[in-house]
């Protein structure tokens, strides 16, 4: 029982227990998550020193399944476990009124376990498996209210998008394994040359799918149809984070070309998603768009060659964004919806939640001394210091600006308006969850030093200028957002932004059609196969008919003849059976006499 298993097993067991017991879902899931948190902390403490822990499971021949806990992964497990725990706490309140809780908590726990396993995965095979697992779990969770058509549709969409992007991961993994001959991640990252470029690009594709980078951002907004805690978990620490985590972990692999594309995608996404967020009319969709843009920032950092910055921002963002989502869930309960038109003034109605929301928002906008400030600075510094492509810095700054803008806008919209509210069940649980996440969202920045110590990496020291730039961008964004309305800010592209910046029918046109074409091709091939199979079957049938004819003519004939003979003999034997005992006795006497004679003769002959 290696310490590596500690973060994974509890939620897994919890999931099974919930499924088996069919009751006590909240308690079990919470217990699982808390234990997982404790386990991951313990793991962090153990591997903080530097030497990683490995745990081997039997897997494919020559390539066993590895669980490797390095400082980085341990840190990530802590983040995942923390977010998961508090989200579950919040969910206890949020889901009070729902039915199908068994399903919910079981899948949540499974989701958590899968995520931990993915974070700790030491080889590509296990990574793929867990990757698929979280894909499935997110599908189930987004489609939790599968009775609602839009939820089911959103779930399907999310699944298909991520799946199609996952193809990249598959190909990349196979290329890497083929090139390096090992399924272990760490050594396979040393595969240099064109392989690394291609693999890097493919990994980027996969990450784009999961992290909803342009042009694959669409599904993330729609995924808001699921329960809010699910969104929180998805966005902050698990599903969406998986993409970034993948890139962060495989950063050593990426060749300059790959890095260029990573940075490009990140830059475009952060700007585009920011614009979309600015134009959104729904709080949760806004948060979703902002998630996309924040991950864009992280990709920028990766592209700039400073994955540490990306990691820091990932951690900070995890706390902040989950806090925001949980607050949004609270508002949703207060007003029975997440459209801004419904939510106007809810902030006044629920001051506590609003306060925590505001803190998280400011943190995201990058206001000191909140955590976002430090992480954003790290990212901006990385972007500016990126040698080669100078355009990363401006993009990052614009992203920051937009962040501030839409956050301010959301705050404004939530504050203005009437302050009536509905009765909210389980408010205490939700508030507990929110607070538990707001605290790290606020204070995580102060821990960055120690985190860097744990990872024994260090940021390139940014000049004061960088800090001021980041700060100004954030503040400027806030001012713009709070003073100017979205329409005037965006002007002509507002409409387009509201429709999610979909280019020529959006992804449906770009991915859907080719996919359908491929499917049609496959179908045609399948038809061909069927036809051949049927032909073979028919031929064999003909042969069988011939054989059967032979049987009937010869063998059956024999058998019938035999039966007839037996029947005739029986008819003859029948006459012996008068049914009278003395006749039977006489027969038996004669028979025994004959037997005796035979035996006697036999004894003579020997």
């Amino acid at each position, binding site marked *: 029982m290696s310490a590596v298993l500690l973060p994974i097993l509890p939620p897994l067991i919890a999931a099974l227990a919930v499924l088996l017991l069919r009751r006590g879902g909240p308690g079990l899931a919470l217990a699982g998550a808390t234990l997982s948190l404790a386990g991951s902390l313990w793991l962090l403490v153990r591997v903080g020193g530097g030497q990683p822990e490995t745990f081997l499971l039997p897997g494919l021949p020559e390539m066993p399944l590895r669980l490797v806990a390095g400082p980085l992964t341990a840190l990530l497990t802590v983040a995942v476990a923390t977010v998961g725990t508090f989200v579950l706490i919040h969910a206890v309140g949020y889901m009070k009124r729902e039915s199908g809780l068994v399903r919910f908590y079981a899948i949540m726990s499974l989701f958590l376990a899968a995520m931990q396993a993915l974070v700790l995965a030491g080889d590509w095979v296990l990574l793929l498996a867990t990757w698929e697992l979280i894909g499935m779990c997110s599908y189930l969770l987004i489609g939790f209210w599968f009775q609602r058509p839009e939820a089911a549709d959103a779930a399907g969409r999310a699944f298909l998008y991520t799946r199609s992007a996952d193809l990249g991961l598959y190909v990349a993994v196979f290329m890497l394994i083929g090139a390096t001959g090992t399924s272990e991640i760490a050594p396979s990252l040393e595969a240099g040359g064109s392989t690394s470029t291609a693999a890097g690009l493919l990994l980027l594709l996969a990450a784009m799918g999961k992290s909803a980078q342009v042009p694959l951002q669409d599904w993330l907004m729609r995924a808001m149809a699921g329960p809010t805690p699910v969104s929180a978990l998805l966005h902050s620490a698990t599903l969406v984070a998986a993409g970034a985590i993948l890139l962060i972990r495989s950063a050593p692999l990426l060749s300059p070309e790959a890095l260029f594309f990573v940075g490009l995608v990140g830059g475009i996404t952060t700007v585009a998603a920011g614009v979309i967020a600015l134009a959104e009319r729904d709080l949760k969709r806004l948060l979703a768009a902002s998630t996309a843009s924040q991950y864009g920032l992280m990709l920028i950092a990766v592209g700039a060659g400073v994955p540490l910055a990306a990691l820091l921002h990932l951690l900070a963002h995890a706390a902040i964004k989950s806090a925001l989502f949980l607050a949004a869930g609270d508002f949703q309960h207060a007003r029975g919806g997440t459209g801004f038109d419904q939510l106007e003034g809810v902030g006044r109605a629920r001051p506590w939640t609003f306060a925590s929301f505001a803190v998280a928002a400011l943190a995201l906008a990058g206001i000191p001394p909140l955590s976002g400030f430090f992480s954003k600075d790290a990212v901006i510094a990385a972007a500016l210091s990126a040698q080669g492509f100078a355009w990363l810095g401006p993009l990052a700054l614009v992203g920051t600006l937009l962040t501030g803008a839409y956050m301010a806008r959301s705050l404004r919209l939530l504050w203005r308006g009437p302050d009536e509210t509905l009765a909210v069940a389980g408010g205490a649980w939700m508030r507990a969850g929110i607070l538990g996440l707001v605290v790290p969202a606020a204070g995580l920045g102060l821990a960055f030093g120690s985190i860097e110590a744990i990872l024994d990496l260090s940021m390139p020291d940014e000049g004061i200028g960088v800090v001021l730039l980041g700060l100004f961008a954030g503040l400027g964004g806030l001012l713009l957002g709070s003073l100017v309305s979205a329409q005037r800010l965006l002007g002509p592209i507002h409409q387009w932004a509201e429709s999610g910046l979909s280019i020529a029918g959006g992804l449906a046109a770009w991915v859907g059609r080719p996919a359908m074409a491929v499917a049609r091709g496959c179908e045609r091939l399948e038809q061909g196969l069927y036809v051949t199979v049927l032909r073979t079957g028919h031929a064999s049938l003909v042969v069988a008919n011939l054989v059967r004819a032979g049987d009937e003519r010869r063998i059956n004939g024999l058998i019938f003849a035999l039966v007839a003979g037996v029947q005739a003999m029986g008819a003859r034997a029948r006459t012996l059976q008068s049914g009278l005992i*003395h*006749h039977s006795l*006489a027969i038996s*006497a*004669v028979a025994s*006499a004959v037997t*005796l004679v035979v035996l006697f003769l036999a004894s003579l002959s020997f």
Partner: protein
Amino acid sequence: MYAQAFFVAIFGLAAIGFGVWVFRTSSMVRSALALLFSQTAVGCMFLAMQTEFLGVLQIMMMATEMSIMAIFMVMFMMDPGGLGGMDMTHQKRFSIGAGVIAGGVAIAVALLADWGPVTPQAPDAAMQTRELGMELLGRSMLIFETAGITILTAMIAATAVAIPVQTLANGGDKEDSE
């Protein structure tokens, strides 16, 4: 030894005589009791052949067994007294032939076969009984127990066949015919 031969012969003749009488008389009770006496004579032959235990056992068992036979005759036959003198046989010629042939062959074997040396001295009676007991509960225990189980089965089966309702008389005679 002549005495022994004499007694064996006497009792043998008695057995044969009663055996013939069984099928000669037309009175059922008579034939049953004739059979009884025939069996008793066989038992006496055992005694004459110094097989005391078996002889006494035979005599004892046959008494009750044949008495039961008698009551069944009376129950199941019209004219048990044989006063009507009706003939109750069939396929006479075949039966006589079969009986004569069977007996004749057996006698021929008895006379012609070479029986080898004969033990003059029989073991003492008490010793016999003891030895037989040892045999029964020792080497041949399995056979003995099998016989016991068989009897039990027969009892139950016969009772089951015989009684539509529990009547003590039936149960009774089944038991003691063992």
